[in-house]
């Protein structure tokens, strides 16, 4: 038995209803327990802020397009590099760090679980290989179904159960965690150089609309009883006036699950634009949040942008091409047969660009105007809005009106005419931040059932202790201390082991990969469905037998099983 006792911790644990109390946390064999073993190692937290390990519910860190972002960007690799030191490997990269770079940086910020936002099933093996090389976080993979031919055929036939069966087979084959739809229908249209401009456009050759795909998949998801909801990147990302598409989409969502949301909308900042062109683009965060506030069965993440350089990468191939037409830097695209697409371009978000300033304001507004922090989670869609190392600064901005006012002086002065940000007084509290960076993610992803996101007995012992004494600082004024504090934990504890201390990783990691398996009745097993297998062998370029990700790729796989209602 290996034990650890954290004494005098200032704990905020929203899931357990702890809102800031000095208490001890006992750990034994990787779990939180009532009482630590006698010989337990003791850490004196000295009243410092102690939270469940951070959870990122949407980030791009592993897999084909992420690695291509590195491959095509030696300039980014040079912009962040560290030498081998102790147990730490060499790292490279600023906006798209190498796998160890991601892992160490997340770990020193107190993050212990990360969800990769987009995995193409055909290339899943690659994502899992990189998961293994991201050793300090438990990893989950959103699995792309936006342009999946078998799904679209089922949607066309109005056969929700068949759509569910395709999802079940695929998730289990590729060891994916949840359903991701990126510009549904749009990635298939991009196979012909086209895109969707409303949720009622018809996908060429498949005769289905994005609205039908989204609606069917939300129902299929619940039939499969999956831990997470459908995870949606809406159509029309980044287009002025796109807030209408977002509102139309939200209006589609039925309330089907009593434990969590029925739809997760990702990087909503990129989907909250008014106006008609880049000249009159304005914030529609008020419209969006008004709807979110009255739609408790929808959860979103911010997709905040931060000024500076980064790399955009998404399965949304057509969007990346449009972005390339604006920036004319360099452009990569990678369409994946029968499934999805992807694109990558580097960008620079400038304080001197009115458009970028409006985008920056919108992300913060979403968080400040959403009443219930459980419905708006903190993210940058890393690295699309900014690399995740910017999270502490975002926390600072959300907690301090003064910080926002100081920023206001440095951005394009016209910004205030296009956004409501500077009229908002709200300053978030420690509790809100704890919800928006871990508890909310655990609940939205449905992984509290495996002990994630809280600190009472039975939970996984993933803990972050930050050099912040909440009673002694005023975040509204001393926001720089908040930023510094969230950048570097005193201790990051993963499954009961101290893995990082004062900004340095101190042990070799041993993460898990969490995936979902929904057990379906035999007649819904696509593995033996004649139509499915015939099409598979005919149109894919790999044999069906070589497609599933073998167990060796998940040395510490953790399956969340569910029974499908089919």
């Amino acid at each position: 038995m290996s034990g650890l006792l954290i004494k005098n911790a200032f704990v905020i644990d929203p899931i357990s209803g702890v809102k800031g109390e000095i208490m001890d946390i006992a750990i034994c064999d990787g779990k939180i327990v009532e009482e630590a073993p006698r010989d337990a190692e003791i850490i004196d937290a000295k009243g410092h802020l102690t939270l469940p390990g951070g959870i990122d519910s949407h980030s791009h860190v592993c897999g084909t397009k992420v690695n291509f972002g590195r491959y095509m960007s030696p300039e980014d690799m040079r912009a962040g590099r560290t030498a081998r030191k102790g147990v730490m490997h060499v790292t490279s990269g600023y906006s798209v760090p190498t796998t160890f770079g991601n892992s160490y940086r997340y770990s020193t910020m107190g993050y212990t679980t990360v969800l990769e936002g987009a995995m193409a099933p055909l290339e899943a093996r690659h994502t899992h290989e990189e998961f293994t090389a991201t050793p300090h976080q438990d990893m989950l993979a959103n699995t792309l179904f936006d342009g999946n031919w078998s799904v679209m055929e089922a949607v066309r036939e109005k056969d929700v159960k068949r759509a569910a069966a395709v999802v079940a087979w695929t998730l289990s084959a590729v060891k994916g965690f949840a359903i991701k739809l990126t510009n549904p229908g749009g990635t298939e249209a991009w196979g012909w150089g086209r895109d969707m401009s409303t949720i009622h456009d018809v996908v060429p050759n498949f005769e289905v609309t994005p609205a039908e795909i989204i609606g069917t998949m939300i129902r299929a998801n619940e039939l499969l009883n999956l831990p997470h909801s459908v995870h949606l990147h809406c159509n029309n990302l980044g287009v002025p006036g796109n807030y209408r598409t977002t509102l139309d989409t939200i209006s589609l969502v039925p309330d089907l699950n009593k434990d969590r949301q029925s739809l997760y909308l990702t990087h909503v900042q990129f989907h909250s634009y008014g106006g008609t062109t880049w000249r009159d683009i304005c914030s529609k965060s008020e419209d969006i949040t008004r709807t979110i506030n009255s739609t408790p069965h929808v959860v979103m993440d911010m997709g905040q942008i931060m000024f500076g350089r980064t790399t955009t990468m998404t399965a949304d191939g057509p969007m990346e091409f449009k972005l390339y037409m604006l920036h004319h830097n360099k452009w990569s695209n990678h369409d994946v047969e029968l499934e999805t697409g992807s694109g990558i371009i580097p960008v620079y978000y400038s304080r001197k660009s009115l458009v970028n300033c409006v985008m920056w304001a919108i992300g913060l507004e979403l968080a400040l105007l959403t009443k219930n922090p459980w419905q708006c989670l903190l993210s940058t869609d890393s690295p699309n809005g900014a690399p995740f190392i910017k999270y502490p600064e975002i926390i600072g901005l959300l907690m301090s009106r003064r910080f926002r006012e100081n920023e206001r002086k440095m951005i394009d002065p016209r910004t205030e005419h296009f956004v409501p940000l500077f009229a908002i007084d709200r300053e978030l509290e420690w509790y809100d931040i704890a919800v928006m960076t871990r508890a909310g993610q655990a609940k939205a992803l449905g992984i509290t059932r495996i002990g994630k996101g809280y600190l009472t007995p039975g939970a996984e012992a993933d803990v972050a202790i930050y050099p912040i004494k909440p009673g002694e600082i005023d975040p509204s004024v001393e926001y720089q201390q908040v930023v510094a504090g969230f950048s570097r934990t005193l201790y990051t504890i993963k499954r009961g082991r101290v893995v990082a201390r004062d900004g340095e990783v101190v042990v070799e990691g041993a993460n898990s990969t969490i995936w979902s398996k929904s057990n379906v009745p035999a007649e819904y097993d696509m593995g033996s469905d004649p139509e499915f297998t015939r099409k598979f062998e005919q149109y894919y370029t790999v044999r069906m037998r070589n497609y599933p990700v073998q167990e060796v790729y998940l040395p510490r796989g953790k399956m969340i099983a569910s029974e499908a209602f089919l």
Partner: protein
Amino acid sequence: MKIEDVVCSFCGCLCDDLVVEVEGTRVISVENGCTLASEKFLGDHRLKTPIRRDGNSWTKISYDEAIAETAEILLDADRPLLYGWSGTFGEAQSVGVHLAEILGAVIDNTSTVCHGPSILAIQEVGHPGCTLGQVKNRADVVVYWGANPVDAHPRHMSRYTTYCDGFFRKDAFKDRKVIVVDVRDTESSILADEFVKVNPGGDYAVLSALRAIVRGKRGIIPPEVEGVSREQLFRVADICMSAKFGAVFFGVGLTMAPGKNKNIRNAIEFTEELSRHTKFTISPMRGHWNVYGSNEVFTWISGYPYAVDFARGIAFYNPGETTSVDILKRGECDACLVVASDPGAHFPKECAEHLARIPTVQIDPHVNVTTHLSRIQIPVAVAGIDAEGTAYRMDGVPIRTRKLFQGQYPDDFEVLEKIYAIVKEAKG
């Protein structure tokens, strides 16, 4: 015993539909593969044990001895080079990168002598590509530029392009136009609907002319560009612009021709130009079955696809300086570990001579030209025959090769892990 859906570990097509018959530890027949595949599976004559050069003769040594001596050579070196990697699986490549990291060595793969310039072009302008199935199911125009698939990737046309029916191309042969661009007639050019014969070294100019046409500047095209008539240039541009889905595949004939990375940059920008009118993609015809895997693995660990120098502690990348050929030419390297490739056969003479002067260790199943330059050779299992692991197809699709039987040889991963363990112990 017949084994189905076997992955061919020969070329970048990484065909995964072979049927291989095995008897004990011998392959006796191969179905579905091309002649290159048959040769690989059937003509597999291996070195029996590790060997060490003693004066003018070879001495058989044990694996433990060979591994210990290799570690010692690497630890003694000031500027070790770890080269090759395209003929082994990802798990072994990964140990290779960590070995380089701990040694402060340079690690490089065979891209350095094939698609290195393509990578440089991609790093300048990006890469609009796709998986091969997109081409199979959609493409109505396929362009091979400086590539001779019939010879180098024999099943590329039948599995992915010219002869392969797809979802939107029910009769591929009729529905699809094939354009071949090359400096000479080849087995592939005979099969083309349109063969564009370019003067040697003229690719860059021809690409520029095509880009100009796509941009609507027909008026500036002279009657002939590098051996290609204006009429043909117009025709080719029209075929491309009226395509519903076009796919360019380029080979070392374009990458290694005068202009090198500039040719590829121009070809990518031609594709980008076409993307404003219709759907177009471009992809390199990667040669070795897992050369792309070595780029992928190097990248996620170190940040760079090849030519990575760890001498400064951090990962440093500067092709032209940190590339193997340059390091060897400068006589800088004082020990070399060659894994799963044959630089003796592919490097310039002066580089091969330098390899013979310094302690060179080769980990490879077969006797090859590099054997004659080496001090030690360690035979290993062949990935895809008696070893298994991850490979990345030329389009980035990862496939796990199969192990067809349990042989007597350790695999690359096992040997490298042992070397790594000794080095790590010594370096602390």
